[in-house]
């Protein structure tokens, strides 16, 4: 009997989520829910100043508070060679400050006490004497002559520049510009944003002197990288470190890096021989942990009169904060910014980038994106829009004209990536149809007569998801593959473990669906575990939408290894040769006699009870998957807005998303990912920004000042799909978690600027707060730059 794949929860089933059974009961197990016997609590004292020399630290009053067990300062860390730690980008970062503080919120001291209230009291009792220094809060100040050197701890650092980097064909690009009819230009700032999962970071370090083993429970999207890093930093042997990442209350890139709090909790546990828990507060999370974006971009498009793009020039000045700790592949200094314009057929491109230190929190994390891809695609789509306006060409038409054609794959992008599949025009057409493009243009003209400002914005992009392939992608030299281990038990039930780590993506549900698809074992018979380095195979974790492209592929591959062994067992059970049997979902059968067969469950039983002579018993295996290429999903996002000319407030009328993420494992979950991404796109374009004053004070240090949209502001979304299977992924899937966050912001910004088109305004920097829109609308000039640098032009 043929198995119905959807019924067993296989590929394409919108199977309800396994993890929800505990989450809706409040039975999730997040870091702060874990309590160990004898556990102590740690709090961090942070710097109130952005740049200052530490003259002295007096912790005597803190030590005197009953219940205080340990006060740690930079000096004590230094005595153990732990005052500094390596970052994921080959820089160093202070664990606890010794010489200077370099950003507001930097970790200065830690207190461990019987409860967190006492620890907080004691932090307040520590007296730090600072000598304030001038703060640098943007790249212009950082690169100015005579600017104070932030990283004077580094011997060969004589300015604030971290890197100068370039890629592309400069000469070819110069020639393209010489041949151009028109050159369009644009300059913008992609503001600093914080991923801000609702759950902050935290850890519980538990060092057991009797076994010399350290167990580190922590909020990590990549627990195996942490184990390797802890082995290097803390000089503990790797086999004596167990990292456990429990349920995560969101991540979005924020929980990839290694933060000082984790490291100090480890030392505290070693010194006190008790478990030490650190739970960051929200302000600590917002002002000290990995931000996203904060990059100044300028560029030019060389255009033919008809709208054909001949060449691209881009320059980026990126603000990395006080320590270069971007979590990104080591080969590329500015992430994958050079993935810009990948969906367009452009002959020549050249990109230069400069990274600088400032007195702001470090990070540069891939906030719901694949290493600066968000910045790349935002700039691309804003640039294309500006070019369409400059040439007086329809914004849909200019995209259609420049798209890579469906029959032109594989295609080399202007900066050298290889895209492999897509139906870009089809996606755009579906989007235009869904938004009612032609009708809206008419409605817009009508509305104008009544003084109403309507606008429509388009954003189309393909982005590189799923790092990597190991030829080009590594973090700290570790190649970016991923892994899966599958154990099929005697009764045909199974346990699957992977090197990825879900933060809400639903791996416990979807990985089982891949196994069900490959083996015909019902998804409900497969339990999925992740996040414990003692049991899970080595993997690089979950970020950059890499789980499905890499770990998901490993799940397929290990299932196929299991099937290959089961096939030999089936031949033995059926007493025919292996060549004479065929596979259908869940069952091997004799080709000449299809009614004669054995199920995968029968093969599993035989693997433990009746193996052929010479075969190892058991039905277990693992797979390490190194993808041949990135996956290239495509997204088309179209929004319509109405701007109130009296206030600059803009309302979203409609949002349409057309996503091609290849084969969908669980359509319900895919749609959930897209809607979450769209909400963040709306957030970033409309309100979300971490900003600083001239003294380097972070003005977004809590949810009163750092605006996140609620259910009330967030618009509704209409979703559509196109399926172009990824040609190299075992089940044709592509990454999807970040597409809408990457492609979405430009659709909102383009729509608002479209509504303001008659004013001649070319740019308003995000977030498009009403005051910025109002200023552009009434004063007819661009509104650019982050405060305090913000200028009208």
């Amino acid at each position: 009997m043929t198995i119905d794949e959807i019924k067993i929860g296989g590929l394409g089933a919108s199977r309800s989520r396994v993890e929800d059974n505990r989450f809706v009961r409040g039975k999730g197990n997040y870091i702060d829910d874990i309590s160990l016997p004898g556990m102590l609590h740690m709090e961090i004292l942070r710097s109130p100043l952005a740049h200052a020399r530490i003259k002295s630290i007096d912790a005597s009053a803190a030590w005197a508070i009953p219940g205080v067990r340990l006060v740690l300062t930079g000096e004590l860390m230094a005595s153990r060679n732990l005052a500094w730690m390596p970052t994921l980008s080959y820089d160093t970062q202070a664990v606890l400050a010794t010489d200077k503080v370099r950003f507001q919120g930097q970790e200065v001291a830690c207190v461990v006490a019987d409860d967190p209230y006492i620890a907080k009291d004691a932090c307040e009792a520590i007296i730090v004497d600072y000598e304030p220094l001038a703060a640098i809060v943007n790249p212009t100040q950082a690169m100015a002559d005579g600017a104070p050197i932030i990283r004077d701890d580094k011997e060969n650092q004589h300015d604030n520049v971290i890197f100068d980097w370039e890629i592309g064909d400069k000469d070819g690009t110069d020639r393209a510009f010489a041949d151009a009819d028109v050159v369009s230009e644009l300059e913008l700032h992609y503001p600093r944003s914080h991923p801000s999962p609702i759950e902050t970071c935290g850890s519980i370090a538990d060092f057991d002197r009797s076994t010399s083993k350290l167990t580190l429970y922590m909020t990590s999207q990549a627990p195996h990288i942490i184990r390797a890093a802890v082995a290097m930093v803390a000089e503990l042997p790797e086999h004596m470190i167990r990292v456990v990442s429990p349920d995560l209350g969101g991540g979005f890139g924020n929980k990839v890096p290694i933060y000082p709090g984790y490291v100090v909790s480890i030392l505290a546990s070693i010194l006190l021989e008790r478990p030490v828990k650190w739970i960051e507060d929200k302000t600590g999370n917002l002002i000290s942990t990995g931000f996203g974006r904060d990059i100044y971009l300028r560029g030019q498009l060389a255009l033919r009169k008809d709208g054909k793009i001949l060449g691209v020039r881009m320059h980026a000045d990126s603000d990395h904060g006080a320590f270069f700790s971007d979590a990104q592949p080591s080969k590329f200094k500015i992430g994958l910014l050079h993935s810009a314009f990948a969906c367009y057929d452009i002959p020549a491109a050249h990109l230069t980038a400069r990274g600088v230190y400032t007195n702001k929190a470090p990070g540069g994390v891939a906030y719901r994106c694949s290493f600066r891809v968000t910045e790349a695609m935002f700039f691309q789509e804003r640039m294309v829009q500006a070019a369409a306006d400059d040439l007086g060409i329809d914004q849909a038409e200019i995209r259609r004209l420049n798209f890579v054609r469906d029959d032109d794959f594989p295609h080399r992008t202007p900066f050298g990536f290889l895209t492999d599949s897509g139906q870009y025009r089809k996606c755009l057409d579906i989007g235009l149809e869904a938004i009612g493009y032609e009708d809206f243009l008419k409605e817009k003209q009508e509305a104008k007569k009544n003084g109403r400002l309507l606008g429509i914005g388009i954003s189309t992009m393909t982005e590189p998801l799923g790092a990597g392939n190991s030829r080009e992608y590594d973090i700290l030299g570790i190649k970016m593959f991923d892994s899966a281990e599958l154990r099929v038990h005697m009764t045909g039930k199974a346990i699957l473990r992977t090197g990825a780590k879900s933060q809400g993506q639903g791996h416990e549900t979807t990985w089982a669906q891949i196994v069900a698809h490959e083996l015909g074992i019902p998804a409900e018979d497969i339990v999925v575990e992740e996040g414990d380095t003692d049991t899970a195979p080595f993997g690089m974790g979950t970020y950059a939408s890499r789980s499905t492209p890499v770990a998901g592929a490993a799940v397929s591959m290990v299932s196929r290894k299991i099937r290959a062994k089961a096939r030999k067992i089936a031949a033995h059970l059926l007493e025919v040769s292996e060549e004479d049997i065929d596979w259908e979902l869940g069952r091997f059968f004799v080709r000449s006699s299809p009614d004669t067969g054995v199920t995968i469950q029968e093969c599993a039983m035989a693997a433990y009870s009746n193996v052929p002579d010479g075969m190892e018993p058991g039905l277990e295996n693992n797979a390490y998957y190194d993808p041949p290429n990135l996956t290239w999903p495509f997204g088309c996002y179209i929004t319509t807005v109405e701007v109130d000319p009296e206030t600059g407030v803009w309302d979203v009328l409609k949002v349409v998303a057309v996503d091609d993420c290849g084969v969908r494992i669980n359509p319900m979950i895919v749609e959930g990912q897209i809607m979450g991404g769209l909400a963040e796109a709306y957030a970033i374009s409309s309100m979300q920004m971490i900003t600083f004053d001239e003294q380097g004070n972070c003005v977004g240090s809590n949810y009163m000042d750092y605006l996140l949209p609620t259910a009330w502001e967030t618009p509704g979304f209409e979703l559509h799909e196109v399926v172009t299977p990824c040609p190299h992924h075992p089940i044709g899937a592509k990454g999807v978690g970040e597409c809408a966050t990457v492609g979405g912001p430009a659709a909102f910004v383009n729509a608002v600027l479209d509504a303001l088109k008659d004013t001649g305004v070319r740019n308003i920097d995000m977030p498009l707060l009403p005051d910025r829109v109002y200023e552009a609308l009434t004063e007819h000039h661009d509104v650019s730059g982050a405060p305090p640098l913000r200028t009208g032009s």
Partner: protein
Amino acid sequence: MTSLFTKVSPEPTTDAGVRRITVSINGNQHTVDVEPRLLLAHLIRQGLDLTGTHTGCDTTHCGACTVLFDGTPVKSCTMFAVQAEGHEITTVEGLATASELHPIQESFKDEHGLQCGFCTPGMMLTAKALLDENPDPTEDEVRWALSGNLCRCTGYQNIVKSVLAAAARLRSQGATDEEEGETS
């Protein structure tokens, strides 16, 4: 020095820095001795081991710590435990029975109204307070009612769908109960 959380004890106390309170949580009476500055969220989480009430922002903005206080949603991260003296608290653990999920929990599952699950307990309790008052809300009413609870994963659309589905479920359950009442 004993820690704040080990002070939760039914034994009489002579410690002047401690207050004795009786709180009803999910229908169970708890008499506990607490420091006056102990936050309600911490009493619930660490003191009574009901860790479904999460703390997200410490400043009343995110709503992950929402509990029902005599039926009204409050943010337990900015309320002192002593303020709960003599009041009835409902946490997420009080929604389901041993065998059956509450219709709101069922609907959040069915409509994919959660991803990481961290905001979910607070969302569901706020939704419960809304549906107790207004069994047939519009989408706008749901969005407004939930605007004190932040979610970073879902984009809210499926949360709103979940609440509307739960409302329909509760109404039809109510209608069935009424019918059964009439026929018996």
